[in-house]
């Protein structure tokens, strides 16, 4: 059966969700088609827009990216870039309040500096509540003793490296020590991975038990703050408050590496926000139909979609929006739009230095492949946002999810406007499911 809508969004990560939500706010009826969670669900819990070596305000750092990184999506927004960042910051706070997002309020603010699992500092404009509370700039400015909590297994081993790396960052006022609570003491507990620990803490009574154990360990270590690997997957705000009551000290949460608990939490919060806003989501594969429109495939069913406008937010290699065939040819997977990296339409199977550097640290323009867009964020018949746009590389630009939010927001609004113009003629007489 044909599905009719004003705007169809392909992709359910941060950029797709922002596009859907902003199109909805603009009054459009929105259908979001997502195949499966992608890179957003593996993200760290921080939302990074831009940063510089010099700790510049976020808007200034973003303008620098637009100027210096060839093909960066920020450049497409022109003078609208900083207002769009302001919008995105407020928009995310509004729609993701369940995560207790905190950090920059406007593009004039500076980044948070967050402890990474490797014991480095990562800049980000926003982070989920417990993570943002661990802003290192803030911690280092006071006399404090940060207890890095080693819970079990691999996480306990990693906690030592984290504490070790934080010590010089926090000196001289604040110091980091490893705190090992007597919580997971069964033989099999060492095998728990972080997502499993988070799930365990969501079970009745478990968080209370951890809180009691943490309270003892914190007192013993004279810790003034506790940095825990996770407070649980669901309702992190309440969970953190519970642990703070139990321990009597501020409880901070670590960033997550894939498979990341904060990433899963972000994905869930987006889903909840979409539902709340009245965006209709379907789990399906979107593809181009013979007549150049969108059709969606669920199991053995294939339904055409009649939409006023289309937003492509299908991600890059992880999300599946861009694919490189064995012969090196780059392909956008839904509409077969031309995809490029560093101006080339193929990634040579033996990548030369212009596409992939010899060192893992890059730069790797080949990994920033995408479809590009005009200043209206259009490519072909679609509006494009997020990683499928290409031109940005979170591993080096230190702007990843933020770019997805900004472009998603803008693409959604424009798609809604375009659908409004096209709407009356296209949608009339169509069957609404």
């Amino acid at each position, binding site marked *: 059966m044909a599905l009719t809508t004003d705007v169809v969004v392909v992709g359910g990560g941060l950029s797709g969700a922002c596009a859907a939500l902003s199109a909805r706010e603009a009054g459009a009826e929105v259908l979001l088609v997502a195949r499966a969670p992608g*890179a957003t669900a*593996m*993200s*760290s819990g921080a939302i990074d827009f831009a940063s510089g*070596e010099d*700790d510049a305000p976020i808007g200034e750092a973003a303008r620098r990216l637009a100027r210096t990184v060839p093909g960066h999506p920020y450049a497409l927004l022109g003078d609208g870039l900083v207002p769009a960042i302001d919008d995105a910051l407020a928009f995310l706070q509004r729609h993701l309040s369940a995560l207790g997002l905190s950090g920059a309020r406007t593009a004039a603010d*500076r980044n948070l*500096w967050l402890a*990474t*699992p*490797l*014991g*480095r*500092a*990562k800049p980000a404009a926003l982070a989920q509540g417990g993570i943002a509370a661990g802003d*290192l*700039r803030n911690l*280092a400015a006071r006399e404090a003793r940060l207890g890095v909590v080693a819970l*079990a*297994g*691999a996480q306990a*081993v*990693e906690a*030592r*490296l984290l504490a*070790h790396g934080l*010590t*010089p960052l926090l000196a001289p006022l604040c110091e980091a020590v490893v705190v090992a609570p007597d919580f997971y003491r069964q*033989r099999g507990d*060492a*095998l728990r991975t972080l997502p499993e620990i988070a799930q365990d803490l969501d079970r009745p009574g478990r968080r209370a038990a951890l809180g009691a154990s943490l309270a003892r360990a914190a007192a013993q270590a004279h810790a003034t703050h506790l940095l825990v690997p996770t407070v649980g997957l669901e309702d992190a705000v309440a969970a953190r408050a519970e642990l703070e009551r139990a321990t009597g000290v501020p409880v901070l949460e670590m960033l997550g*590496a*894939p498979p*990341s608990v904060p990433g899963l939490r972000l994905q869930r919060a987006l889903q909840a926000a979409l539902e709340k806003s009245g965006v209709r989501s379907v789990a399906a594969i979107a593809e181009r139909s013979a007549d150049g429109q969108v059709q969606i495939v669920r199991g053995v069913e294939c339904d055409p979609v009649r939409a006023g406008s289309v937003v492509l937010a299908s991600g*890059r*290699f*992880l999300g*599946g929006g861009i*694919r*490189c065939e*064995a012969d*090196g040819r780059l392909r956008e997977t839904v509409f077969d739009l031309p995809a490029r990296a560093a101006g080339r339409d193929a*990634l040579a*199977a*033996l*990548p030369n230095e212009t596409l992939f550097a*010899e*060192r*893992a*640290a*890059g730069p*790797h323009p*080949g*990994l920033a492949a995408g479809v590009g867009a005009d200043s209206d964020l259009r490519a072909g018949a679609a509006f494009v946002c997020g990683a499928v746009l290409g031109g940005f*590389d*979170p*591993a*080096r630009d*230190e702007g*990843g999810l933020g770019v997805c939010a900004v472009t998603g927001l803008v693409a959604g609004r424009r798609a809604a406007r375009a659908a409004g113009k096209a709407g009356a003629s296209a949608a009339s007489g169509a069957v609404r499911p």
Partner: protein
Amino acid sequence: MRSYDLLVIGGGVNGTGIARDAAMRGLRTMLVEKKDFAAGSSGANSGMIHGGIRYLIDDPQVTRLACLDSGYIQRIAPHLLFRIPFLYPVLLERPGEPTLKDRAFLYGAECYFEAYDRYQPLKNGKAHTRLTDGELHELEPGIVPGTLGAVTMDEYGIDPFRLCTLNARSAASYGAAVRNHTQVMRLIRDGAAVVGAELKDLRTGRAEEVRARCVFNAGGPWAPKIAALAGVEVNIRPGKGVHVTLDRRLSNYGIICKAVDGRDVFVMPHEDSSIVGTTDDDFYGDPDDLSVTRDEVEYLLQAVEHTFPAVRKARVLRAWAGIRPTLYAYGPLEDALSRDHRIHDHEVDGAPGFFTIVGGKLASFRAMAQEAVDAVARKLGNSAACTTHQVALPGGEAPAPEAQELSRKYAVPAFAAARISYRHGAEAERVLRAAEDEPELRAVACSCEGVTFAELAFSLREEFAESLADLRRRCRLAMGVCQGSRCAGPAAALVADERQLSSEAALADLTALLDERWKGNRAVLAGEGLAQAELVQGTYYTTGGLRRGGGRPWR
């Protein structure tokens, strides 16, 4: 100054094998390796103890020795060997329509394999069989249809990294001084005689002089460079061999395929992956700086595709290269070069006390080491018998414990227990015992290859591992499908802990491992491999902040 009977230079299979043999005969022995055991050619081969059927006509002594020694290697390291039956399909130009020539070819092939059967009992291999096209496809349905059938042959795979590590450990247990990450800077002469070396520990920068009555150059592709330190010329004809690793066991059997130029290329199951190889091309570059070209990868994949089209469905994880230190000859094509070995006593070149070994095969390393140590022993007046074919390598003394049992007893996942049992044989319990006192060692660091922290700790404590790259070689850390996205960070934390490294040093080690993995991925990036690369980048650079230095970045 420390003084030894024998200084062995090179920690490949020859060097570690020689050191073990010499130490077992009571020679005071030192082994030095500038990188790590099996970091060169010994770790860049097909991972097979094979009998060398290819040399049957021109070099039957090579085949015989390889088969004989394969049998001995099975005896001393039974846990490390795994049987790989090979299929040799006979493809037809017009599928299903064999010509007389095709039938004659199959007949000839069968005669050839029958001749090889004579050597199979030496390595507990089964005699060849002939399969019809139907039988062949029952075994491997992915082979192109309409063949004339196939001939089978029995071979064995091995983890060559562990083989070298175990030799080095065994040498140490017999009193040898074992130093990896230690380079020979200079040879010490007394008149013409080579009487020692100046060593440099590449991690600490510390220099040391040692005396030795004999010095053995087992440098493989680096042998000419090491010989030059003694003013001696050693000539080899280096041949570059490229392999690619696929993300899964694509076939249950090894399959012999024909490349576009008529050469044989194999695809073979190896642990949880498949290996495709190899090329053989004259190499004129620096063995410390190997890279793989697109042509080489495509040549190998095309060769397999011709017989086994499913290879295109697999994800190519990485491509890697090594250099064969083949005996020098001017004239023959690379493939036609002899795989025989030679031991040079450089007394005739005016450098008494200095020896070099070149050529040879992984499968006959033990016999070559025996011959090498015989030459040294004669010179030193040592008459002890070689026992390396009788005494087990560490872990080979008794049958490996059953994985389920290990899993229950030590509360580790069964899939990890199975890998520990394979890699460590009778030592498996020793590996896991540390987890009794340090519960976090039970955790799985690398779920692709089933590596527990206990195994990493064991290698750091007992197997001369100093870095993540060393752990990769000993435990297959980061060698699986995720290429280090999950394990490298946690493992770096363990290394830092065990070695009391600063955060800076630990992250430099992590960067080195990621660089090494990237080097192999970079040559084959496509399809899902790019998603994996994006995930690695996200984990270590976006989330991990690894590119940022350790300084305070805020104002």
